[in-house]
Structures are given as structure tokens and as C-alpha cells.
């Protein structure tokens, strides 16, 4: 115990030293005055002293070798249970769906809007999950495809007056084409090189949008984009918010459905295998280029579709919405939730989007908490919240399962 206290004491002292210039001294270079904020140092000292106990306790808990083999994470157990009990699964799906559908009845426009955004990020996360989680290609420029979709709708709508539903597939297709264009040159690169090239690609797209005024209206963006049209109905703002929400619910369900199917298809297996061992995968007859391009194109498609929705929802877009931070947030959703796991990505998106949103009351402390939480999450649960759960085949009932 004494040793523990000593450790914490050391940590506290170290951090008091570390934060000294930045936390304690505040210089006003204009009036040449120095403000000494010694209270901050005391807060840091006490905070770290207490915090380091918790830190070590959590680390120990994580590393404890308690029969690691037999230990099945809760998330896996839940998933296994649901896989074995289709009735329970249906029931859960039904409850969730009912909750989603009834949500707007009890909530105000603000809540609905936040939830719509969260749903959009779920779809974006699932799209990126194809690229990163399934195919194992680290893409740091995913937001570029989102931008492609958004600008496709914004430009086609404001110049040619094309409707949302018409542009939706165009946006998706165009993003897919961009995905392939990016994919071709970078496929030979391995992990981290791919990451930096995709990051560069994302930045290039944003810079072009910023600089090419004649095409994209530059940094001042495009205003007055039409909201989506629903069967020609005249909707007021509240109704429109609800309508977009329901559209996103449908979108999300369709995406979950499709991604789930992709994951357990011939192509999905090939992606997983490619992620696990590229050479062995090729030697087993899986075409690397084709498979990777397919992942890029499909991932991009979802980003493109969401881009169109985004432009229609906000009615105004500018390049500021498509920065690297955005890519980083979507990537965090995938990693935080658990790579390759659909429930994981959903959970990740809800946490990453709703938490900062409801932390608005912290206002300026929002981002620091966000950054810190990302670090802590990774330290204590690096594999993400939900572990990937592989589908099982049972050979007496194989027909029913595969057909389902």
C-alpha cells in the first residue's frame, strides 16, 4: 500500500512539474505582466494523485490473466445468444425499431435532428467499416467521398434543379468512381503508406473545393440547396425534420442489412482474408486488386450517398465540413465500436456523436474531454466496445440459415 501511495505521489509530482509552465504561468505579452496560477498546480497534483490509483487499478484489471481463454466478453455472449435464438433477435429488433419509429413523437426538433445526425454517422461508419474493418485498408481520407456526394447534389440541384432522389444514386456512383480512381494507384502500398496517401487525397479534394471558385463557389460554399422532396408533400420545418429522420432510419436499416449481407458473402470473406494475410489470400485464388477496389468503391458509395443527404439536410455546404478531423471522427467510430462489427459501429457512432452533443453544456471543455476519452477508450479497451462475432454454420440446418 505504501508503495502504491509512493507511486501516486511520484506521478502527481511529475505532472505538477510537467504542467507548470502551461498551467501555472500566464504571460500577457502586451502588458508585460505575469499571472501565477498556483491553484492550478494544486488541482493537478491532487487530481493526478487520485487519478493514478484509478489508472493503475483499471490497467491491472485489464491485464489480469484470469483464465483469459475461458473469458467470453459480454458483447460476444449477447451476440451468440441472439444468433442462437432467432426469436429473441426478432424481438429485440422489433423493440429497437419501434423505439426508433416512435422517437419523434416524444422529442423536439432538436433531439430529432441530433439523432438524424447520429444515424448519418452510423451509415458513414458502416461504410468506412467495409474499407477499414473488413478489408483492413486504413483510409484517412474517407471524408473526401462524403464531399463528392455533397457537392454533387449541391451543384446539380442549384444549377440544374435536379431533385434529391435523382441525384442520390448519381452521388453514390460518382463517389464509387472516385473510390476506384483513388484505389488504383494506392493499392500496392502497405498499411501506413496507404493511410498517408488517403489523407493526402482527402486534403486534395478539400483544397480543390476551396480554390476552384468557378466550380465549387470556393470557401463561401453553396447556399439554398433544396431539401429532399417527399411525394410532393408541402412540409413545414418540423415535418421536414421528421421526414428526414424517417428517411435516415430507413437508410440505416437498409445499410445495416446490406453490410451484414456483404460481410457474410463471398466478397466479404475475401475482404476478411485479405485483412488477415494478404499473401496467403492471394495464393488461395483471391484477386487482390479487384477485391480491394471493390472495398474502396463500396465504402465510398455509402459516403457519397450520405453526402447527398447531408447537403439536402443542411441546405448549405462549404469545404469546412470536410476536414481531416471529420475523417478522424468517422475512423474513431469504427475503431471505438470494434472493427468489423456492425453493432460495434452503431454503438461507436452513438457515443461519438451523441456524447459531445450532450456535453454541449461543457462548451469549451467538450473537445478536451472528447480527446481524452478517445485515449482512455483505446488504453482500456483497444479492441473496441464490441468484439467481432463470426457467423456459425450448422450443417443440419444449413439451408434455413443461409436462406434467411
Amino acid at each position, binding site marked *: 500500500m505504501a508503495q502504491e501511495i509512493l507511486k501516486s505521489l511520484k506521478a502527481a509530482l511529475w505532472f505538477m512539474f510537467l504542467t507548470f509552465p502551461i498551467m501555472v504561468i500566464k504571460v500577457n505579452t502586451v502588458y508585460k505582466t505575469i499571472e501565477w496560477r498556483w491553484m492550478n498546480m494544486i488541482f493537478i497534483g491532487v487530481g493526478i494523485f487520485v487519478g493514478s490509483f484509478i489508472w493503475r487499478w483499471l490497467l491491472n484489471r485489464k491485464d489480469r490473466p484470469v483464465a483469459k481463454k475461458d473469458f467470453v466478453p459480454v458483447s460476444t455472449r449477447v451476440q451468440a445468444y441472439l444468433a442462437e435464438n432467432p426469436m429473441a433477435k426478432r424481438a429485440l429488433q422489433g423493440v429497437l425499431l419501434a423505439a426508433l419509429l416512435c422517437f419523434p413523437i416524444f422529442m423536439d426538433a432538436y433531439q430529432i435532428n441530433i439523432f438524424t445526425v447520429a444515424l448519418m454517422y452510423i451509415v458513414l461508419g458502416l461504410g468506412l467499416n467495409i474499407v477499414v474493418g473488413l478489408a483492413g485498408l486504413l483510409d484517412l481520407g474517407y471524408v473526401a467521398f462524403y464531399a463528392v456526394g455533397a457537392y454533387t447534389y449541391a451543384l446539380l440541384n442549384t444549377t440544374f434543379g435536379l431533385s434529391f432522389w435523382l441525384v442520390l444514386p448519381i452521388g453514390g456512383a460518382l463517389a464509387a468512381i472516385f473510390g476506384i480512381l483513388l484505389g488504383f494507384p494506392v493499392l500496392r502500398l502497405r498499411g501506413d503508406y496507404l493511410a498517408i496517401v488517403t489523407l493526402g487525397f482527402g486534403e486534395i479534394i478539400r483544397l480543390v473545393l476551396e480554390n476552384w471558385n468557378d466550380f465549387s463557389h470556393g470557401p463561401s460554399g453553396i447556399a439554398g440547396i433544396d431539401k429532399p422532396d417527399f411525394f410532393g408533400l408541402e412540409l413545414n420545418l418540423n415535418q421536414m425534420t421528421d421526414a428526414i429522420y424517417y428517411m435516415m432510419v430507413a437508410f440505416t436499416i437498409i445499410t445495416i442489412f*446490406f453490410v451484414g*449481407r*456483404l460481410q457474410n*458473402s*463471398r*466478397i*466479404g*470473406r*475475401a475482404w*476478411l*482474408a485479405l485483412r*488477415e*494475410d494478404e*499473401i*496467403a*489470400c*492471394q*495464393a*488461395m*485464388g*483471391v*484477386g*487482390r486488386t479487384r477485391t480491394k477496389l*471493390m472495398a474502396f468503391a*463500396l465504402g465510398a458509395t455509402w459516403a457519397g450517398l450520405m453526402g447527398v443527404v447531408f447537403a439536402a439536410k443542411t441546405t448549405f455546404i462549404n469545404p469546412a465540413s470536410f476536414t481531416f478531423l471529420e475523417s478522424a471522427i468517422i475512423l474513431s467510430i469504427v475503431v471505438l465500436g470494434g472493427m468489423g462489427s456492425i453493432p460495434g459501429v452503431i454503438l461507436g457512432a452513438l457515443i461519438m456523436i451523441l456524447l459531445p452533443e450532450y456535453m454541449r453544456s461543457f462548451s469549451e471543455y467538450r473537445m478536451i474531454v472528447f480527446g481524452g476519452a478517445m485515449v482512455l477508450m483505446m488504453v482500456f479497451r483497444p479492441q473496441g466496445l464490441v468484439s*467481432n462475432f*463470426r457467423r*456459425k*454454420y450448422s*450443417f443440419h440446418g*444449413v*439451408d434455413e440459415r*443461409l*436462406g434467411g
Partner: protein
Amino acid sequence: MENILEVKGLTMDFGGLRAVDSVDLYVKPKEIVALIGPNGAGKTTFFNCVTGIYTPTKGDILVSSNNGSAVRINGFKPNRVTERGLGRTFQNIRLFPNMTVLENVMIGKHCRLSAKIFGALFRDKKTRAEELKAAQECYTILEKLGLEKACDELASNLPYGDQRKLEIARALATEPKMLLLDEPAAGMNPQETVELTHLIRRIRDTEQIAILLIEHDMKLVMNLSERIYVMDHGQKIADGTPMEIRNNPEVIKAYLGEDIDA
């Protein structure tokens, strides 16, 4: 072409180093052929050239196609080589550890299936039938190798010997005309090695395919193979029946210090 695989003057250079030096080799249908030699002789490099992981510097690799004509596969990507009917395993096991055993085998089936994205998304009748057939065929392969009980396990949870077997199962799923096994018995105990010998022979008999294997376990090699090639320092130094190889002075010299009768 009468032979299933014919390699002529295969040479592979890495920078200034010549790892394989004009090696000739052929394999006839349904034949079990071994490729032996001391460590660093260039055996695995030879395998990698044949299976498309490296593009050889010189020489020809010919594979007989379905209509009997020879196809030169130099510089083909590994997956194209596999499509041509050469399935392989790896010296250091390269399974897909986080996929189930069955899924591992189904990857082998990949190039024999045709489902596309739309098939995957909408899962039409054809796709479903194809998936079902593939799953069942893979299950059958697992049964043949005695791995069917583990079919839902993650590959990484299998014991070592079973992982080796799984690699063979996966290669079989590619529906090969010839199987290339890179040290299949490495790390196995004598009992397992004996089982493996039977297994390989059984595969040849039931599947009617040729087998080319690299192995250090001389007992297995001598028991199993019909012909043997010996490599040293990148060159082929001998070939012939097990009996001929056993008595070849060059081979004995190359293996000096190693007990080839073990």
C-alpha cells in the same frame, strides 16, 4: 502437354544473389514428387516463383490447361496461378487466424465461385444455392481431413497439427490439379508425421491430383514420394527415385553431417 507442371531453366535473382539457378523440374499427373535440399537451398523460393509470389528472372513455368495445351504462367499473379490449378500451403502457417475454420476453407473456394456484389446484396436464388453448395463442399473437405468438429472454431484456436491440416484443406478447396506443400510435417511429432503420410497419399488417391512437396523429414520423403529432386545452393544437383537419391554421392555430400537415413 503430358506433364501437369513443367519448369525449364528457372532462375531467380535477388539483387546480386542468385537464389534459384536454372532449375528444371516436371510433375506428371497423380504423381507425388519431393523437393529436398539443405536449408537455404532455394526450395521455398522455387515454390514462390511457381505460385506467382515472385516473378522469376528467367525460365519457363508451364502448366497444362484443361484442353491439354501448355500455358506459360511466368509473372501471373498468385490468384491467377491458383485458378490454373496449383494449390499451395506455407512453410510458416499462414491461416486467417480470426476467421472460422470453415471460412478459411471457403476462401479457398473463392476463385471457383462467381457471386458478385449484387448477388451479395440481394442474395438471389443463384447466389444462395452457390453459397450453400460451397459451404457443403468445404464441410466435406473438412470431414476428409477430420476437422469437421472444429468447423466453427477460430483458426487460431486450433492445435498446431490441425492448423497444418487446415492449410491443406484450404488448398484442396481451390480444386487444384496439383498441390504444393511446403514442409507439411514441420513441427509435428513422429506419430503425427505418420498420420500425415497416410493423409497425403489418401488425398492423392481420392482426389486424383499430383503433389509436389518440400520436406526435411527424410522418412516421410522416402516413404511417400515417387520421385525426388535435390537442390543445393540454388541448383538442382540430382533427381530420381528415392533409391537413386539415397545412393547419390552428390546428395550425400550436400547433406554432409545430416543423417539422411533418419
